[in-house]
């Protein structure tokens, strides 16, 4: 083949040094794209923020003010009375001690469930991702299948199982239930994360003489802050917000906060105290909210730290 590339003449390229565009391309602030983008964002924000606004505002009003009917109006006279009542005096069916006791119930359910489920699931995921033991695929398939079984199907069998174990109506029974039900999704989460870490790292650690736990604790765990943060967010909000398991597997004394909230809101005696209901709801939602704010920051930092190439 003959070389037929032609070399451009110099005069063609040395034309206009002046006049042509130069430097960064100018951005228009009100381009159609921007208007659309920020418009949508603003609408979504308002959609989510308005109910929260109404709740906060209502919870700070007295009942007479609420009866005026304008739910958007800010409180004329700010009162924390409803908050105190929701925490300490509101009636939940039989007793009238507010949410306080149930708050601690929820704490006692959530903390052990979260810790237990994350510990077990992370080790599961690690074993599945890195130590392809015999039957690992079958085990994983069963676990994933478990994630698709509707909870309702299992509600009653678990009642019987817990009763046989003598844990029915007890907080520890609920902890076990939460741990088990968190397992499929958490294991999947951890398995995928560990599988995404470079395999050679694991091999290097084996050559260096680290065993099953040595690799888990000293090599993988320090690299896994992001995924643990995700797991904590998932579990804390999921378990704290749980209503169904709480109402089924615990008794009136050990109800979690969500069940108590429901009882407060649904009390049919006397006038409906909207302000107390709103305050009780916000108090109940406070824990997941805090988790989002605190760990959200940690989460971003964790991701950033993990992104350092290495």
């Amino acid at each position, binding site marked *: 083949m003959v070389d037929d590339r032609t070399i451009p003449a110099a005069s063609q390229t040395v034309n206009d040094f002046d006049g042509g565009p130069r430097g960064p391309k100018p951005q228009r602030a009100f381009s159609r794209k921007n208007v659309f983008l920020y418009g949508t964002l603003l609408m979504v924000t308002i959609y989510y923020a308005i109910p929260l606004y109404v709740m906060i505002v209502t919870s700070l009003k007295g009942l007479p003010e609420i009866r005026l009917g304008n739910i958007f109006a800010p409180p004329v006279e700010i009162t924390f009375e409803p908050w105190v009542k929701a925490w300490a005096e509101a009636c939940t069916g039989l007793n009238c001690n507010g949410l306080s006791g149930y708050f601690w119930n929820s704490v006692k359910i959530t903390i052990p469930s979260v810790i237990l489920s994350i510990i077990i699931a992370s080790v599961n995921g690690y074993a599945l991702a890195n130590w392809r033991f015999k039957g690992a695929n079958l085990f994983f398939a069963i676990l994933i299948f478990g994630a698709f079984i509707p909870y309702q199907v299992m509600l009653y069998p678990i009642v019987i199982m817990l009763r046989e174990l003598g844990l029915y109506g007890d907080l520890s029974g609920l902890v076990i239930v939460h741990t088990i039900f968190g397992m499929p999704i958490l294991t999947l989460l951890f398995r995928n994360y560990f599988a995404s870490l470079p395999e050679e790292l694991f091999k290097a650690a*084996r050559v260096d003489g680290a065993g099953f736990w040595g690799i888990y604790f000293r*090599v993988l765990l320090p690299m896994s802050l992001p995924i643990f943060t995700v797991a904590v967010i998932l579990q804390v909000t999921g378990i704290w917000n749980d209503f169904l398991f709480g109402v089924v597997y615990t008794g009136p004394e050990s109800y979690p906060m969500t069940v108590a909230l429901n009882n407060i809101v649904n009390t049919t005696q006397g006038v409906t105290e909207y302000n107390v209901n709103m305050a009780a709801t916000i108090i109940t939602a406070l824990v997941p909210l805090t988790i989002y704010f605190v760990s959200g920051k940690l989460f971003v930092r964790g991701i950033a730290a993990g992104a350092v190439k290495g």
Partner: protein
Amino acid sequence: MESSITIRDLELSFGAVEVLKNLNLDIGQGEFLVLLGSSGCGKSTLLNCIAGLLDVTDGQIFIQGRNVTWEEPSDRGIGMVFQSYALYPQMTVEGNLSFGLKNAGFSKSEIAERIDRAAKVLQIEPLLKRKPGALSGGQRQRVAIGRALVRDVDVFLFDEPLSNLDAKLRTDLRAEIKELHKRLRNTMIYVTHDQIEAMTLADRIAIMRDGKILQLASPKEIYNRPASKYVAEFIGSPSMNFFDGKIGENGQSFACDAGTFSLNGYQFGEGGAQDGTAWLGIRPEHIAVGTEAKTMPIQLEASVQHVEPLGSDTLVRVLIGDRRLWVRIDGQSEVADGDALNIGFDPAMANIFDKTSETRL
């Protein structure tokens, strides 16, 4: 030579896929063996079997005379260096180097001493307090080598350690690894795709294909007398030129469409001369041109089709009839597309392969 690693009848399958097939290999004490082969031929798999990172399906592995087939990687007396460095990102360089020693239960003073020694050898002393993220690629790979070095292992296993580095660094580190081998005299097994690495580093090269070793020999032997057409094509760039034709007159001549060549001077292998269809291969650098070609036993007339100047040499693609040949000539010679060119070669430099079995005759 006493052998350092012996592999007997090694087989490895992933499910139904047989990756290594009945593989036997003896590696001498202090030998530098390079495993070379195209992607997916099982080089890493073999290395992982030797390291104990994969359970073999069948066969035995001996290291320093000990049967290690069932031993843990850390008990085999091997150190491994990976393509992606595989440094523990949250540990400092010092932590990376000491990790294996701590696992093995060495005392603090012993660990410090060994790290000191390795850091001196690899010139990474100023980096000890840094994390891997703050190192360049070359520095990281030095640390990875150090991790094997501190453990005082009998055998170093390298899996494409230089592939992630740029060309200049690659050349430097290649020389350093060679230096290190001269100094330590450990047995080293080195996996690579890169022929130049293979040729420069190896005492012996094992060419692999589809889980088998096709040829195990010194770089020179592999270059000069490749055992099969596959090996011949694999080694050398551009690869060997082939004429397909027929051996006749009891191995005295080779007839093909470019003419009939006398094979006077060609050294047949152990099987001796056999008549029949065959390939005759000649490397681009063994073809002479111009006046030099006139002195060669085999002479041909060609025309230049395409010229690729590389600086030190020039690659020329020539046509003989419609057969294309690559020729490597001196970088200073002036040839242009379409020129007529006399070429010639000596059958002593050629290799002849049987047409059906593709083995060297």
